């Protein structure tokens, strides 16, 4: 990722992404911050908690899950967003950006 920062993220599974039936592809430039694997991610914990409130139970037993709590923070600057309403990829998508 540091050599080639061009990435994409597809939000398509309602179970994991909570995007409903819609399908959204975000393409952008990634920056990987691995300078502090143990604490660098903590400032984003509120976002994580919002999506998965039960994460606090794992956090309370942090010492039991050593590797789970080592995290590289990847930030993506969106360059182009492609969206398929209702997940119908047989139709032309809406495109935002480059």
């Amino acid at each position, binding site marked *: 990722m540091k*050599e080639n920062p061009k*990435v*994409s993220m597809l939000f398509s599974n309602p179970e994991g992404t909570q995007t409903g039936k819609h399908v959204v*592809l975000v*393409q952008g430039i990634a920056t990987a911050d691995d300078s502090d694997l143990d604490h660098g991610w903590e400032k984003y914990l509120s976002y994580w908690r919002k999506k*998965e409130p039960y994460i606090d139970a794992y956090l309370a037993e942090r010492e039991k899950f050593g590797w789970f709590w080592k995290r590289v923070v990847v930030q993506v600057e969106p360059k182009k967003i492609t969206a398929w309403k209702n997940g119908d*990829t047989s139709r032309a998508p809406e495109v935002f950006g480059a």
Partner: protein
Amino acid sequence: MPDIDYKRLANFRNAILTTVGDDGYPFSITTNYQLTPDRKILLDKPILASKLDGKRVNVLFNHITGVPTGGYTDRRYMLLWGTTHEERGKLRLEPEKLSEWDEKILPFPEYCAKVAPQGAKYLENLQPSVEA
């Protein structure tokens, strides 16, 4: 040709096709798929600016079920690498390589133990570029 369990492959909601676009960015899109009796994997052709005939792709079939009290269950995926060929309005996937996991077949802790050497090899290969 990888050893594909077509019975399990039939048990996914849809497929996610990924390739590298003309602009150098990875591009993914969901699409429906069908398996034919003679074991062809056919993908519905999405509307894209780039042609997918003869394109190197990977196709992910995956599933996950959320547990209301937290976490997930029934996690499984099959990831096929290969080439797509346009055929009668569909995309036929010619698979070359497969990686997969199904926690009902191999529980998560055992899966971690199994792939740990692969992870170690990856990190060893990565180390020179990190130190550069």
